[in-house]
C-alpha cells in the first residue's frame, strides 16, 4: 500500500507525560506508522482511549479522538465504526482498562466482530495509580495492594479472545518496532475485531516484566517460523498451552465477516442533509 501521509501527521504537538523509557512510546509510534502505512489519514481516523497511562494516547495522537471513561473504550469504538464505516477506528487501552474494568466489553467486542483494531498496552501492572497488580500480573507479583502476590491466575487475553470468537488475535512487543508495526498493519487491514496485545513495559513500577524479560522470552511466530495463523487447532495449542511469550499473529480467521458486513451497514449515518424523507410520514400508518 502506498504511503499517502507521513506517520508524523498522526502525532499531536503535545509532549507525552509518560515516564522516559515507557513502552507506550513504542506502542504509539507503531500505531501511527501502521496507520500511515495502510493509507489512512488523520481526518478519517478515530482513536478511542480509556483511562490510565495508556488512555493518554488519544492526546498525543492527531486524529479525531475520544478519551473516555475507564474500561468502556471498546463500546465507544463500536458506535463510531457502525455510525461511519469510512472511519478507521483504533481503540487503545491498558490491561486494567481492557481486561479488568472493561472485561465484559472485551468478550462481547470479540464475538461481535466490529471492524476495529484494539491495541492493549499490556504492562502487567497499574502504572498511573503507582503500581498495583493488574489482571495480567503474575500471581507472585508483589505490589502495594498485594504484598504477598495476588495469588490469582492471570488473565490470558489471547485465550479469552479466542473463546469469545475473536477473528484476529495477535501479540506484539513495543520495542520491536518493525514487527510491532507489521502486526498492527495486519490488524488494521483485518475486516473485523483485531486484538493486538502489546507488551509495553512499565519501567517505573514493574521490575519483573521488563524489556530484558521480554527480549529473553519472546518467541516470534513470523513468516520465518512457518507458523500458519489460519490454522485454528495450531492457534488453540499455542494460545492455551504455549509456555512462551509469543509475538505475531496467533490466529486469523480468513472467512470472518465484520458486524457491518453482516448487517449491511455501509453508509455514513451522520449525513442528514436531505432529512426527513417522505417515508417518515408513513410511519403512523401501522397504528391504525
Amino acid at each position, binding site marked *: 500500500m502506498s504511503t499517502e501521509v507521513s506517520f508524523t501527521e498522526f502525532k499531536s504537538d503535545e509532549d507525552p507525560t509518560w515516564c522516559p523509557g515507557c513502552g507506550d512510546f513504542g506502542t504509539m509510534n507503531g500505531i501511527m506508522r501502521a496507520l500511515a502505512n495502510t493509507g489512512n489519514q488523520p481526518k478519517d481516523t478515530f482513536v478511542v482511549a480509556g483511562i490510565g497511562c495508556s488512555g493518554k494516547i488519544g492526546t498525543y495522537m492527531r486524529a479525531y479522538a475520544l478519551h473516555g471513561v475507564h474500561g468502556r473504550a471498546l463500546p465507544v469504538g463500536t*458506535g463510531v465504526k457502525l455510525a461511519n464505516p469510512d472511519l478507521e477506528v483504533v481503540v487503545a487501552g491498558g490491561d486494567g482498562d481492557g481486561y479488568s474494568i472493561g472485561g465484559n466489553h472485551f468478550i462481547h467486542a470479540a464475538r461481535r466482530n466490529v471492524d476495529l483494531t484494539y491495541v492493549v498496552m499490556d504492562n502487567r501492572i497499574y502504572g498511573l495509580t503507582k503500581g498495583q497488580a493488574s489482571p495480567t500480573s503474575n500471581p507472585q507479583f508483589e505490589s502495594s495492594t498485594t504484598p504477598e502476590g495476588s495469588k490469582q491466575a492471570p488473565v490470558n487475553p489471547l485465550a479469552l479472545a479466542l473463546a469469545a470468537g475473536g477473528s484476529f488475535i495477535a501479540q506484539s512487543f513495543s520495542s520491536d518496532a518493525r514487527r510491532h508495526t507489521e502486526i498492527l498493519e495486519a490488524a488494521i487491514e483485518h475486516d473485523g475485531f483485531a486484538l493486538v496485545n502489546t507488551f509495553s513495559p512499565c519501567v517505573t513500577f514493574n521490575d519483573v516484566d521488563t524489556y530484558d524479560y521480554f527480549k529473553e522470552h519472546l518467541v516470534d511466530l513470523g513468516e520465518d517460523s512457518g507458523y500458519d495463523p489460519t490454522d485454528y487447532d495450531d492457534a488453540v495449542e499455542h494460545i492455551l498451552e504455549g509456555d512462551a511469550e509469543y509475538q505475531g499473529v496467533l490466529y486469523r480467521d480468513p472467512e470472518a465477516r465484520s458486524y457491518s458486513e453482516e448487517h449491511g451497514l455501509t453508509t455514513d449515518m451522520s449525513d442528514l442533509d436531505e432529512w426527513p424523507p417522505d417515508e417518515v410520514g408513513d410511519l403512523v400508518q401501522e397504528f391504525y
Partner: protein
Amino acid sequence: MHEDLNWAIGGAAGDGIDSTGKIFAQALARAGRHVFTSKDFASRIRGGYTAYKVRTSVAPVQSVVDRLDVLIALTERTVSENRSELHEDSVVIYDGERPGMANFEPPAHLTALSVPLTDLAEEAGGAIMRNVVALGAVTTVVGFPVEYLDEALEKRFGEKGDQIVTNNKEAARLGAEYVAEEFDHEFPYDLETTDEDYVLLNGDEAIGMGAIAAGCKFYAGYPITPATNIMEYLAGRIEEFGGHVLQAEDELAAINMALGAARAGARAMTGTSGPGIDLMAETFGLVAQSETPLVIANVMRSGPSTGMPTKQEQGDLNMMLFGGHGEIRRFVIAPTTVAEAFEKTILAFDMAEKYQTPVYLTIDLAMSVTEQTFTPEAFDVSDLEIDRGPIVDEADVQEFQDEEGRFRPHMVTEDGVSPRTLPGTDGGVHMSTGLEHDELGRRTEDPEIRVEQVDKRERKFETAREREDWSPREFGDEDADTLVVSWGSNEGAILEAMAYLEDEGIDIRFLSVPYVYPRPDLTDAVESAETTIVVEANATGQFADLVEHDTLSRVQRVNNYTGVQFKADALAAEIQEIVAAEGVRA
C-alpha cells in the same frame, strides 16, 4: 349511564392477555371510539395475574377510573383482584368449564356469564382461539357489532394466513351468538360508533417513531422493563431509514456505543429504566463534559433498586436532574401525553445538537404501556425541519481554528455554544475528553481556563433558557384560586379530575409541565393562587421541592407511590379534600 365503558381481560401471564386486549382496543379505535388502556402485569413469564384494561368513550379519554363494567376473567384471581371496581351493572364473562374455574362462584351482585370459551374455540378450529371467542361474547354484551373485530383480527393474524384469520373471525361470531342465544338478558351497554378513524399507540412507540422522524440512526440499549419496547419498535423499522439498533452487553456499553455514534456525527440514542440510568451515570458526565449531543430515554419504573419493576412511579427526577459526580447541567424533558412523547422526542434531538449536550427524555411506566387513541394529525411531520446546531464543514472550518490551524471544539463563545466538526472533516481534527480541557480539547488544570470552560458550558443553558420555549401546558380557569401543577404523564388524570371537580363547583387552574430542566418559572402563578397543589407519582415530592425552591413558597402535595397510576376519580377526591381543608373558595 356513564359515557365511558371500562373493560378488561385478565388471567395468568402466558394467557395471551395483552394481544387479546389490544385486538379489542384496535377494534374500538377503528369504530371511531377513543381508547385509553392500562395494564396490570408482573415480572414473570407464566402464572400470576395480569390484565389489560380498556377505557373507551366517544369523547377523548386520558385516564383510568376505579370502575370496571365488563370483565373477561380467565382466572378466579382476576375477579378477586378487581372486586372493588365491579358494580351491580358489571358483567363478568368466564368459562365455567375451564380447569380451576369449575368451583368459581361469581359475586352475587353482578351479572356473570359462563361461556364455554374453549369448546366454542375448538368448534371454530382450535382451542387457542378461546380469548377471541370471549371478545365475540363481549361484543354482544356491549352492543358493539362483531364485524368491528374483523379488521383487528386481520391485522393480528394476517401474517399467519387466511385460514387462521377466517377461523378467528368465526370464533368471534360463535362467542357473540352464544351470548345472544343463551342469555335472555338486557345488557345496559350500547357502544356508539363514529366515522372517525384513530391511531392507537403507546408512549414507547411514540418515542421510537419520534426518534426515527428526528433522524436518529443509531440506538443501543439493553433489555429492561419498561423501556425495551422502544428498542423493539426501532428494530425492524429504523433500518429502512439507514439506521441500526444494537443490543449491547449492558447499559454501560449501550450509552458508550451511543456516545461513539454521536461522536461520529450520527443522531444517536440509548434508552433504559432506573437501574440502567444508575449504570449510565458515569458516562453521562463524559457526554456532557465532552459536549456530545445524545438523547437518553428513561422510562421510569418503581424503585429504588429492583423496586417494583412493572409498576408505575416518577421517582427518578432527582437522579436525572442531579445524578453524577461533579456538576453537570442537562436537559430533562418529560412529555405529558403519548402524542407529546412523539413531538418531544424530535425536540430532544434538536436540543441535544443545538446545545451539544445530553438530554434526558423521560416518560413513566404508565405512559410507556398505555395505548391511547389520537387523530393521526398529532403525528404529522409534513412541516418537520431538524436543527443540527453549528456544524462546520471544510469550507468554513478555518474560521474556527487557532493561529496554528488547530480546530477549537470548545471555543469560548458569547452564547456558550461552540462550533462542531464531524469526523472526516479536513481541518477539524480534535480530541474530546472527560478531562477538563482548553478550547482545543487538551487537558488542563489551569484555573483560568477551568473557570472559562465551566462558565461556557453553563452559558449554553442560559442561552437555551432564553432562546427556547419552556412554557407549561395550561388548562382550566386562569383565575381559579386553586393551582394544580404536575409533570409528566399525570396530565390526563388531572384533566379528568378537573371535570369531576367542576361538577362539585371547584375551579382549577392546571399547569402541566413537560420541562424539568430548564423549566418554566411558576412564581407568578403560585403567588397569584391561594393554594398550589403539586401532583406527582412519587413519595417525597421531588417536583414539589423544585417548585418550592423556585418560587420560595410552600405548596400542597399529592403523592402517589402505590405503583398504580393516578385514577381520575380518586385524584379528584384528594384534591377536593385539600381544597376543603384550605377553605379555598371556588
